[in-house]
């Protein structure tokens, strides 16, 4: 029997509806894959086996009657940031120890209403603050991709085995995997690893500065951050409310389209949810891009960018040109200010959102001599270093006397960044093509990044502009670097034009081919 975990969502959907396979078999296949791989990869922080089996059984009953929703029987992993009723929801922070919400986030409720099966909760950077998944209280997630070496091996003449096989001497090249463990990116590192290593059919993720697109690029998967307001934020643990958006990470563009269709909705419980009908994203895939205007922003050619990233970008341009798109050079002059503005706006909002973790209403409590002492000790013990760093920055830039110099200035710059995009879209550009990240996946405990927080922040240099302007962006795998690691391209679209992103990403996917890691785990 073929390994059911290798089926994409669209393939599994066909087989489930055709009664070739059952949701129970599919779910059991994933649960055993998780059982085998999770001690090594650490993608899941909680596995909900019983719940998954119950949901699969209910799906099978509906499928047997010829009923069922768009995701009927499809096993998914859920980022730990999403509130899931009665199930581990801790944003991978110590401060939320033991928290099991009495409510379900709108996004996950939408998925269950469409018949999806929950496999468990996925690891992430603590409160989604990080670009390597190393800030999680539950430890780092391991990328299923490893660097490979091409060695020339001199083969002696040998006699092997009892078959009497004789191999003549000579030289051949062999590709061997390096043992060094790499990060999957962050903050949705668990989501990216679980999808890439076949530990779920697809996963939910969130993106505040690149947390869907950067891990997708590091793991050869597809990740889309939709337009701000497309997916409800209700029931998702808040990091930076004006930037946070939920979206899927999936094995291919079609699966990402299927998942986003279910995740997106208009929700009265989120005042920033935008009242627009959710289109059928899948229908955009396969539509020709002939005549489409693709913008190439010159400011994304940053200093010190590896040659391989530039080469990948040029390949992407060539593929789209071959498919009939018109390539135009564009300028987004305030690009370089997006990251510094982000590191004022995001920590400011985070310091406010995270004020609620005080040891009173949920999670950890460390006793103190009085109530303030209890707050201070609880928060000192409950938050990790990166989270504390950001709360401190946020508190400082919002404090009396500094508000105008930092926060107000950053929000003005943010408007200029948004205007840059509006100007090129008004000039007729349909979609913008950029690299997704400035490098491939790096090693666990990278010394440079550990020594300088700003170095880690630079991972988001190509993705953060999109959050600042509230636009949709998709990362699609486009090639491998010389060490065999996946690299991604990013497409940025007009507000609520996710369809053009799926349509264009599918062209890149078709030209670049799918990417799967060699299994070692």
């Amino acid at each position: 029997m073929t390994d059911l975990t290798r089926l994409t969502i669209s393939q599994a959907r066909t087989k489930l509806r055709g009664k070739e396979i059952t949701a129970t078999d599919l779910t059991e296949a994933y649960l055993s894959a998780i059982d085998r791989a999770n001690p090594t990869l650490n993608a899941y922080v909680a596995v909900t086996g019983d719940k998954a089996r119950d949901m699969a059984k209910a799906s099978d009953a509906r499928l047997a009657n010829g009923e069922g929703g768009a995701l009927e029987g499809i096993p998914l992993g859920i980022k730990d940031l999403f509130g899931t009723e009665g199930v581990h929801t801790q944003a991978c922070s110590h401060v939320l120890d033991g928290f099991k919400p009495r409510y379900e986030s709108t996004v996950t409720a939408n998925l269950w209403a469409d018949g999806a099966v929950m496999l468990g909760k996925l690891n992430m950077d603590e409160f989604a603050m990080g670009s390597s998944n190393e800030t999680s209280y539950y430890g780092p997630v391991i990328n299923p991709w490893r660097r490979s070496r091409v060695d020339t091996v001199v083969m002696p003449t040998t006699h092997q085995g009892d078959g009497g096989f004789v191999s003549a001497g000579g030289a051949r090249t062999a590709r061997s995997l390096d043992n060094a463990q790499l990060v999957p990116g962050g903050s949705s590192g668990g989501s990216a690893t679980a999808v890439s290593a076949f530990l779920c059919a697809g996963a939910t993720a969130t993106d505040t500065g690149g947390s869907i697109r950067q891990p997708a690029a590091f793991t050869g998967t597809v990740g889309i951050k939709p337009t701000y307001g497309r997916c409800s934020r209700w029931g998702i643990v808040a990091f930076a409310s004006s930037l946070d958006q939920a979206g899927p990470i999936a094995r291919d563009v079609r699966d990402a389209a299927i998942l986003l269709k279910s995740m997106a909705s208009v929700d009265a419980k989120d005042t920033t949810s935008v009242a627009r009908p959710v289109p059928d994203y899948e229908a955009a895939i396969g539509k020709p891009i002939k005549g489409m205007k693709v913008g190439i922003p010159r400011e994304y050619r940053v200093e010190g960018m590896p040659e391989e990233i530039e080469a990948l970008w040029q390949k992407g341009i060539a593929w789209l040109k071959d498919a009939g798109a018109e390539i135009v050079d564009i300028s987004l002059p305030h690009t370089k200010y997006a990251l510094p503005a982000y590191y004022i706006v995001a920590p400011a909002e985070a310091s406010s959102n995270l004020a609620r973790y005080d040891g009173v209403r949920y999670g950890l409590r460390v006793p103190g001599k009085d109530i303030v002492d209890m707050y201070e000790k609880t928060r000192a013990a409950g938050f990790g270093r990166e989270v504390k760093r950001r709360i401190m920055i946020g508190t400082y830039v919002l404090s009396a006397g500094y508000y105008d110099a930092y926060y107000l200035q950053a929000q003005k710059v943010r408007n200029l960044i948004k205007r840059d995009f509006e100007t090129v879209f008004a000039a007729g550009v349909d979609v913008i093509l950029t690299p997704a990240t400035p490098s491939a996946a790096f090693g666990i405990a990278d010394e440079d990044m550990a020594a300088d927080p700003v170095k880690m922040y630079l991972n988001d240099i190509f993705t953060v502009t999109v959050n600042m302007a509230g636009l949709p962006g998709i990362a699609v795998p486009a090639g491998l670097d010389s060490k065999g690691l996946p690299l991604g391209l990013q497409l940025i679209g007009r507000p609520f034009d996710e369809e053009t992103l799926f349509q264009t990403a599918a062209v890149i996917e078709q030209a670049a081919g799918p990417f799967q890691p060699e299994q070692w785990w």
Partner: protein
Amino acid sequence: MSVDVQTVKRVARLARIAVSEEDAERMTGELNAILGFVEQLNEVDVSGVEPMTSVTPVEMKKRQDVVTDGNKAADIVANAPATEENFFLVPKVVE
């Protein structure tokens, strides 16, 4: 602008995070690295630019001022570290 250890301790107090002397010293360096990085925003000419209040030009939604939820005190306190009869328990605040 840069911060000194005293400022870091004051900010930690505002943020209700206990910091040791050692923490405060380390954070001073880290915070200054970040503040140095964001300094470049001062080069941008923002004259006549409004600060952003919303990425999407939507009007704040308002609902009817009526009760739509409630009567779930037990749910609300369910995750609290210490409760009594659906009240949150905290150390004594008033003498």
